[in-house]
C-alpha cells in the first residue's frame, strides 16, 4: 500500500512528461511535414564547399 504513494505519482509524472513532450513537438511544427522529415535524413549536411 505504501509503495503506491511513490508509484502512482511516478506513473502519472512519466505519463504527463510524455504528453507534454508530444504537445511541445506539435507546437514547434515537427508534425507539419512528415514526408519531408522522413526524406531529409538522407541529405548530407557537411558544409564543405567542394569534395
Amino acid at each position, binding site marked *: *500500500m505504501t509503495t*503506491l504513494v511513490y508509484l*502512482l505519482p511516478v*506513473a*502519472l509524472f512519466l*505519463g*504527463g512528461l*510524455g*504528453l507534454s513532450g*508530444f*504537445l511541445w513537438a*506539435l507546437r514547434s511544427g515537427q*508534425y*507539419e*511535414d*512528415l*514526408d*519531408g522529415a522522413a*526524406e*531529409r*535524413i*538522407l*541529405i548530407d549536411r557537411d558544409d564543405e564547399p567542394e569534395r
Partner: protein
Amino acid sequence: MSCCAPGAEMALDVAGAASVLPSSQEIKLASRPLGGDLYQTDLSVPAVHCAACIQTIETAIGKLNRVEGARVSLSTKRVSVRWRGDEVPSFVAALGRLGYQAHLFDPVIDEKDKTLSELIRAVAVAGFAAGNIMLLSVSVWSGAEGATRDLFHWISALIAIPALAFAGGIYFRSAWNALRHGRMNMDVPIAVGVSLAYAISLYETINHGDHAYFDASVSLLFFLLIGRTLDHVMRERARTAVKGLSRLAARGAMVLRGDGMRDYLPVGEIEPGMQLLIAAGERIPVDGNIVEGSSDLDCSLVSGESTPRTVALGEKVQAGTLNLTGPLTMAATAAAKDSFLAEMVRLMEAAEGSRTQYRRIADRVSALYAPVVHLTAFLTFLGWMAATGDWHKATTIAIAVLIITCPCALGLAVPIVLVVAARRLFESGIMVKDGSAMERLASVDTAVFDKTGTLTLGRPHLVNASSIDPTMLAIAADMAAHSRHPFSRAIAGFAGFSGQPKLESFSEYPGFGIEASGAGNTWRLGRRGWAGWKARTGGEGKLSGSGGTVLSRNGIISASFAFKDALRPDAKAAIEQLKDAGLSVEMLSGDTAKACSEVAETLGVDRFVPAMLPSGKVKQIETLAKDGHKVLMVGDGLNDTPALGAADVSIAPATAADIGRNAADFVFLRESLLAIPFALDVSRKAGRLIRQNIAIAIIYNAVAVPIAILGHVTPLIAAIAMSASSLLVIGNALRLHGFALAEATSAPSATRSGIRAPVQQS
C-alpha cells in the same frame, strides 16, 4: 537532378497549353509581408518527391540574390521562399531551370489548420487519460478492495476531468449545436453517454461503491477521436492537393493609365473604363471590349467551344478566356464582381440552395437510434423501480444500459470506412473533398458529362499526320513551335525530322498564322484564306480541316491539316463501365451539334444536348432530379459550375476552372476518365461496408442490451464488449483495402493506363 526526372511520374499537365511563368508583379501580389522588407512567397511545386529534390531546390534558391531562405514541404509539395527588397528574386525561373514547374496558388488558404491541431491535442489528452485510468481500472478488476479501490477511483476521476473538458468538449459542442437546431446527430448519444457515465461513477466513488465507469467514458472518447481525426486528416489532404493546383483565373492585370504609366492591379480593383494590357498567354480578367490588337481566344473553359475564336478590334471578350496569340489592349466594361465569372458563382449558389439537403446515413441512423436507446434506459429504470423499489439500483442499471449502448461502434462505423475509401481514392489521384460525397455518389443513377475538357482533353490533335508529306510536316512543326495557338501546339508535336530547309525570321500574325522565310521562299502556316493567298489548290487542297489550317509556300498550299479535339484517354472504356454499373449517360455541351454528335457517337453516349447555356444545364439537371433521378455531374468549364452545384454529386478534372474545382465534391488529377467509374465503384463498396458496420453495431447492441437490462453489466464487461465491437467494425472497414488489392491483380487493365499505381506510398 539525376534521380528525379520531375514531372515524369505524375501524368499531370495542368498548365498544358497555358504554361506561362507568373510575372513578378503577380508573385509580389501573392506574397505575404513578414515585417520590415521581408516577404514570403509560397509556391506549389507538384514534382517534388524525394530528398534530392529537397536539397537541389533549397540550395539553388538559397543561393539567389536577396533570398533569405527556402523551405520545401514534401507533404504538401510546396516551397516557401523568404526574400527581401522590392524586386522579386527570380526563383520561379530558377525552379524552371532545375526542371520543376512552379505555380502560385491562393495565399488566403495558407492559414494553419486549427481544427486539426485541436483534434490532435484532444487525441493526445484523451489517450494519456485513457491509458492511466485503464492502468488503475485493471488493478481494481484484479481485486483491489476497500480504501485502495476508493483511492484508485478518486485518482481516475481526477484524471478524467481534463480529458472530458478538453477532448469531450468537441462532442459536447457538436451535440449542443445539433440539439439547439432541433436536429439529432451521432454526437448527442455520445455526449449523453459519456457525461452520465462520469456522473454516476463520481456518485459511486463518493459512496464507496465498487463499480466505476471512468475507463469506459474516457476510452470511448479516445477511440472516437481517433476516427474523427483520421477522417479530418484525409479530407484536409485532399483539399490541400486540390488547392495546390495551378490557379486558372487571372490574379490581376496590367493597367494602362492615362499618363502612360503602367500599374499591376489585383482583379478586385479593376474598374469599368480602365485600359488593360493582356499579353499572349494571359487570361482575360474581366469582361471588356478590345481597343487595340487582334488575337485568338481559347474559350473552352468559358463556353465549351473547342475551336479558338479569332477576335479583333471592337469585339467583346469575356472574363476567363485565355489570350493565345497576340497582345491585346482592352477596355474593361465591368468590374470583376459583375463579370461572367461572378455571374456563374451566383448561378451556382442559387442552384446549390435549391438542391435538397442530403442527410448522411450516420445522422439518419442516430435520429432513430438515440430515442430508442434513451427510451430503453428509461423503461429499464421504471421496470427496476417497480420490481425492487430501490432508487439507487434502478438508476445504476439504467445508466449501465446507456453506457453499454453508447455508440462507440456506431460512431466509428461510418468514418472509419470513409477514411479507408478516401485513402484508396487518394492513391489513385482522386481527391474527395466532402465526407458525404461518397455516400451520395453510391446512389446516383444518371451521369451527365460536359464535352470539352471533360470527355475530351480540350486540346486539338492532328488527325491526318500520316497523309502529309513528312518534309512539309517537319517544316510546319518547326514553324508551329513559335506559337502558342493550340493548333500549332498539336503540329509542333511532330517535329524531329531533319533535312528540311532551314527557316528564319518567324513572325506571328494573331488571328491568321505564322510566317517564316527560308531559302528564298516565304512559308505561311495558318488560315486557308491568308496562307494560300494565290492558290486555288495545292497538293492536297481538298482536305479541309477544322478552321482550314494549311501550310503554304509563296502562297501556294502545300499541305493542309485536319484537327479533332482529342478524347480523354479511356473515355470510351469509362462510359462503358458506367453503363455496366447501371447508369444512364448524358452529355450537355456548349459546343456545336456537329462536334457533339461526333463525340457522342464515338463514345456511345445515349443522349446529348448541344449549344447549351450555363442556366440551361442547370435546368436540365433539375428536370432530371424532378423525375426522381440522382444525378452525377462531371464538368470542367466555368459554364459547368452552376450545373456542378445543382447535381446531387459532382466531379471535376484537375484542369477545371478554379471555381469548378472548388464546387466539385471530387477532383481527379490524372488524365484518364476511368477515375469516374473507379470512384463510383469504391463509393458503392464503401456504402455496402457502412451498412454492414451499422448492422454489426446494432447486433452488438441487441446482444448487450438484455444483459445490461438484467443488471449483469460490470465495468469489465462493458470495457470488453465495447472494445470488441469497435475492433470488429474497424476490421470490417479494412476489408475495403483487401477488395481493391484483389481486383488490381485480377483486372490489370484498370491499372494499366489510367489508375496508375501510387507514386509514393507515405
